[in-house]
């Protein structure tokens, strides 16, 4: 059996969960076995229903007040019990902060191997030969767990297609009753929630770098006298333009670390080795030089567009399309041009 863990937050499944389910369906077909989806939480029946529509033949539901918030200890114990009772040769998770931790701890409970964040795989009989990036994506490694079971894998968001949703399902939802230990931690709540399109799920990302502050002709309001504050104010004008382009495209806004460190935009928007790793269909880099640590986070984008003043900026080596020019001139014109084209349908 292939077990697929459905990650969710605030009542909604993380889209990459369906991609993992799609991988599970193909693996099950190759090994002539079946796919079960596992949903843990409190009041998560609707998510279970969605898992059926995405193709699970059976959904295992553990619905308990204790599982209201993700906490690694009870969640790990619950998945481990399900694997022990139901048997599973392969356990799949989408790569998210929660699932990565959960998969790691599950590997310890079951004394088996974990391949995190796979981007490809092939089947060698019942054995999954995974491919995953190492050294910040500079190399790829094949990774195999030959002898121990289950094989635990997490799938990188957007590396695999999502299965078609079909409302006519024949699958069933089964409620499981588990005895879980008292959790070791208590969730007090959430602060500082992110809004807008999530970076890792976005089809299109428009990103800004240090270049967003480089428009000397913009005059900050007189009450801003501090030089640093003036720079941030300029960058905000730059990110305003980037935000408008993103809005027209239904895109998420990203940033380089230089932009984040200088206080132009929150860390949640950072793309790169120490930020988020993204693989959108389209990545538009504005005023970003293309440092190797930035590329580590976006090199797998299908199409990269670079807008940069400097014709020698390394980002052009990776880009499919490039504009050598000032982002303050180009970005608003691009927004207007795309708006015209998109509104025409």
């Amino acid at each position, binding site marked *: 059996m292939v077990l697929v863990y459905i990650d969710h937050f605030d009542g909604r499944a993380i889209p990459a969960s369906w991609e993992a389910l799609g991988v599970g369906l193909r693996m099950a077909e190759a090994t002539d076995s079946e796919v079960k989806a596992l949903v843990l939480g409190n009041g998560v029946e609707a998510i279970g229903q969605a898992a059926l529509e995405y193709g699970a033949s059976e959904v295992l539901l553990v619905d308990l007040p204790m599982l209201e918030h993700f906490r690694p200890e009870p969640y*790990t114990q619950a998945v481990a019990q399900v694997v022990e009772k139901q048997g599973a040769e392969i356990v799949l998770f989408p790569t998210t902060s929660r699932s990565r931790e959960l998969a790691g701890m599950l590997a310890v409970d079951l004394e088996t191997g974990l391949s995190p964040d796979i981007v490809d795989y092939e089947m060698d009989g019942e054995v999954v*030969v995974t491919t995953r990036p190492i050294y910040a994506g500079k190399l790829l490694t094949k990774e195999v767990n030959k002898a121990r079971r289950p094989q635990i894998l997490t799938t990188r968001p957007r590396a695999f297609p999502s299965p078609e949703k079909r409302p006519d399902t024949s699958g069933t939802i089964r409620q499981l009753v588990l005895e879980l230990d008292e959790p070791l931690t208590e969730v007090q709540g959430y602060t500082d929630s992110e809004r807008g399109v999530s970076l890792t799920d976005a089809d299109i990302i428009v990103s800004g770098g240090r270049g967003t502050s480089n428009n000397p002709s913009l005059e900050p309001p007189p009450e801003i006298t501090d030089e640093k504050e003036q720079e941030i104010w300029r960058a905000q004008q730059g990110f305003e333009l980037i935000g408008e382009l993103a809005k027209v495209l239904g895109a998420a806004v990203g940033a380089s670390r230089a932009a984040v460190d200088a206080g132009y935009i929150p860390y949640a928007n950072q793309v790169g080795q120490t930020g988020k790793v993204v693989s959108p269909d389209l990545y538009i880099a504005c005023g970003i030089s293309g440092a190797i640590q930035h590329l580590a986070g976006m090199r797998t984008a299908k199409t990269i567009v670079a807008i940069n003043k400097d014709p020698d900026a390394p980002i052009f080596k990776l880009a499919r399309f490039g504009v050598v020019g000032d982002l303050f001139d180009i970005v608003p014109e691009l927004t207007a041009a795309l708006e015209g084209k998109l509104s025409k349908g």
Partner: protein
Amino acid sequence: MNIVVCVKQTLDTAATMTIVDGKASWGDAPLVLNPWDEFAIEQALLTKEAEGGQVTALCLGPETAEDALKQALAMGCDEAILIQDPAFEAADSLVASRALAAGIQKLDPPDLVFFGKAAVDSDTGVTGPQVARRLGWPSLNLVAAVSDLDASAKTITVERLLEEGRQVVSGSLPAVVSVVKEINEPRYPSFMGIRKASKAEIPRWSAADIGLDGDIQPALTWPEIFAPEKGETQCEIIEGSDPAAIAGKLAERLFEEKVI
């Protein structure tokens, strides 16, 4: 407070990687302290400065990894220990977490163990939670702020950085805390620190020393390492008489190539 920080030696993130004889090669690029672990060390030192106690840096690695531990000492850690044994040469995270957990259990019982977010070579990002699981302690992962630490009540409250925002979580000590870079600004080693570190004798612990002589087979093997396909990233530079013309042409090309 007894504090442990687990650090790894990795490659400089600017190193150019190639494949030589089927193996990853980085030419003469230097090996460094895993950049994420500098934040873990800093947090360990800040905690010690606030609460008193001592900080021990623990590393599993080959002989060369001594340099990473020397840097930890130069930053201000009090002790450093290298777990070094040929048995750990092909360690996966399952084996590494077992060795680190066994090493921690050999130390004076700690109140807090700090980890970095991930090692920049293996990109695994699970060793901290795995060690927590082995020790049976709370795993506080991706911590961006420690909002409360009460040494006498033995409690800790942290903010975890998730995709959706910050989750506020509390737990009891001892606990494992894996940190992200928002948590602090790592200090540079002082001259005094560097001098002290250069003279320090770093003890070596073998697999037998931490009670792990049998049964340390990794679960994973790596049959092939290869470079990503370069793809035909011939960049098409869009030119035109003015920004509007350039933008118009770029928009057109994006539609033609069905990017949008």
